[in-house]
């Protein structure tokens, strides 16, 4: 066994390997297709699109739509582009992801390593919460935020996203820690390590891969959320998706598809960045962990 990604004991023959590469490449194409449509159309003048050549490569290449989407497209009454909304999203997403992931990790830790009577019922309750349809939450949530004085604020949005994300993060960490050898914990306990010490020194260092899954999930969901962002944000805390939606959904006006696509890709860049950066730790976390023999 060497290092890095080569960490499975399975060996495969040459024909099989070729086949595997073929299948993997085929799916690369499948996943890339819509992106092709979006990228290609984001660098064309609008006439080329409405003229009917939606699948063709651009005849005239232009970055105008990108510039427009970022800094001069009409979002509200002012032609601000998406840029001012970018920070609103960051200010909401970072704390919400951090809080919900930490809560999830702690919950998962308690539910697997500090079991108590009825702990499965508690887990079941938290888990079933994942299934609540957001449509029924909207009105009572608005009432609660109003009562707490958080309506129209970034912290209100953070609260909402933590509440409806904690079920997932708990699920991820609980299932991950479930297969973590409990003997290690017991040994540490005998050595006099406390609750947080064990978590910090033993579980956390090997939580890389699942933390990545959890962060990707939460980051994506919160970054892309529209319904809560639109309903609970104030004029100065509207997130990027609301702005993107305003750009795209212009009711009776001319639809600038090229700008829409450019805007959509711009809006997705932070999540993509998380995937690329976090994707590395996906593997690295494993190497550092003590799960592997």
């Amino acid at each position, binding site marked *: 066994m060497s290092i890095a990604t080569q960490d499975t004991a399975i060996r495969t023959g040459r024909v099989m390997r070729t086949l595997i590469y073929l299948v993997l490449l085929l799916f690369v194409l499948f996943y890339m297709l819509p992106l092709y449509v979006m990228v290609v159309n984001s660098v064309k003048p609008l006439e080329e699109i*409405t*003229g*009917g050549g939606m699948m063709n490569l651009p005849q005239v290449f232009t970055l105008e739509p990108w510039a427009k989407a970022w800094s001069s497209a*009409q*979002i*509200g*009454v*002012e*032609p601000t582009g998406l840029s001012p909304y970018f920070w609103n999203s960051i200010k909401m997403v970072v704390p919400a992801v951090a809080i919900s992931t930490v809560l999830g990790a702690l919950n998962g830790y308690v539910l697997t390593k500090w079991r108590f009577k009825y702990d499965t019922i508690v887990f079941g309750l938290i888990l079933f919460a994942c299934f609540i349809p957001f449509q029924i939450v*909207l*009105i009572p*949530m*608005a*009432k609660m*935020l*109003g009562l707490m004085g958080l*309506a*129209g604020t970034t912290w209100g949005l953070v609260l909402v996203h933590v509440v409806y994300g904690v079920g997932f993060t708990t699920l991820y960490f609980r299932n991950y820690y479930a297969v973590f050898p409990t003997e290690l914990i017991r040994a540490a306990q005998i050595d006099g390590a406390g609750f947080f010490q064990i978590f910090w020194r033993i579980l956390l260092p090997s939580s890389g891969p699942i933390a990545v899954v959890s962060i990707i999930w939460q980051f994506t969901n919160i970054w892309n959320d529209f*319904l809560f962002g*639109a*309903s*609970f944000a*104030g*004029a100065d805390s*509207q997130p990027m998706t*609301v702005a993107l*939606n*305003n*750009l*795209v*959904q*212009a*009711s*009776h*006006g*001319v*639809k*600038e598809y090229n700008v829409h696509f450019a805007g959509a890709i711009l809006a997705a860049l932070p999540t993509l960045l998380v995937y690329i950066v976090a994707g590395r730790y996906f593997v690295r976390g494993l190497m550092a962990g003590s799960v592997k023999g």
Partner: protein
Amino acid sequence: MRSFFKTKTAIALALSVAAGTATAEDVEVLHWWTSGGEAAALNVLKQDLEGQGIGWTDMPVAGGGGEQAMTVLRARVTAGNAPTAVQGLGFDIIDWADQGSLANLNDVAAAEGWDDVVPAALQQFAKVNGEWVSAPVNVHSTNWVWANKAVLDANGIAMPETWDDFVAAMDTLSAAGITPIAHGGQAWQEATVFDSVVMSVLGPDGYKAAFIDLDADVLGSDGMKEAFDRMSVIRANVDDNFSGRDWNLATAMVINGDAGFQMMGDWAKGEFINAGKVPGEDFLCFRFPGTSEQVTFNADQFMMFDQGGAVSAEQAALATAILSPSFQSAFNVVKGSVPARTDVSNEAFDACGKKGMADLAAAASSGNLFGSMAHGHANPASVKNAIYDVVTAHFNGEYDSETAVQELVDAVDIAK
């Protein structure tokens, strides 16, 4: 400690100064006008207010022709911080007025004489239970047909005036290998066509009985079956790819000469203008055959939410600015609609705009101005959507006209 004390006195000072001078409050405006022209036109309003020292906090939420904004509005009202002014349509305004959420604008209405210049059919949605609660911005009319003049000329088609003319024109285009009707298969677009068809078959009285009074006998009548039959004829003259198409892509088909006609509200004009086409030369606008006297309309308005009187002066200023003839003209030239008051000069408008204004004035005075069912100005949202369900199912071939009439009566009954 000292610096803390200092800040505190500074704040106290600032507070007392603010209280003393009574500066104008900001207005927070929730709206869904985010496309270039509309938003730019709205910016005129913003600057007008800022000139009076009133700040404008923009709260744009687009989507679903305002449905998204209405969802947000409900969350805001429930949370106890309703925006100052909210873009609203037809029955939504009446619903909010009935909830007691809207401010009374009667003083400014009296001072500005709105009762005399706003058409009565429109006042129904702005003046609820004798109180002015919102300020109308525009009147869109929905029973328009848009046509490519070159295509019509090449096939020797004159502007159709009756349903039979229209059928003949469609047949000619079909034979020439051109899609007769450009249509986008979305429920609201089908309902927009249905509005005109029902108006032409049942006439204004039948339209009113069916869509405004929700008379089950008329909804279930043979005339209604005839209307559905005509929808089938239109369906037969639409290309096979219509489903899900955005309205503006359908307009593009007419612009590009791939299709002859499109039935759509006056906002379609913007697409033609944007493509560099000239009304009367490159494209034609005329009323749906058999509805030349009538106008079915929808109107955008700004409802003013009651804030316990805290911003009454600002709301009055906003409403006054909205209904000022100069804004009405400037905005509607851009939007493709016509002014909500009938005394605005038509100078700045193009041929279709002038015709729209004349039609509106004529229809308003002859009692032929009716709220559009498809756009929420004939019946409440629940009924409107129930009608959508039936119209779109029938148009997509789920059932025949006979069944459609039955379903219509049922659906309206459940939704009432």
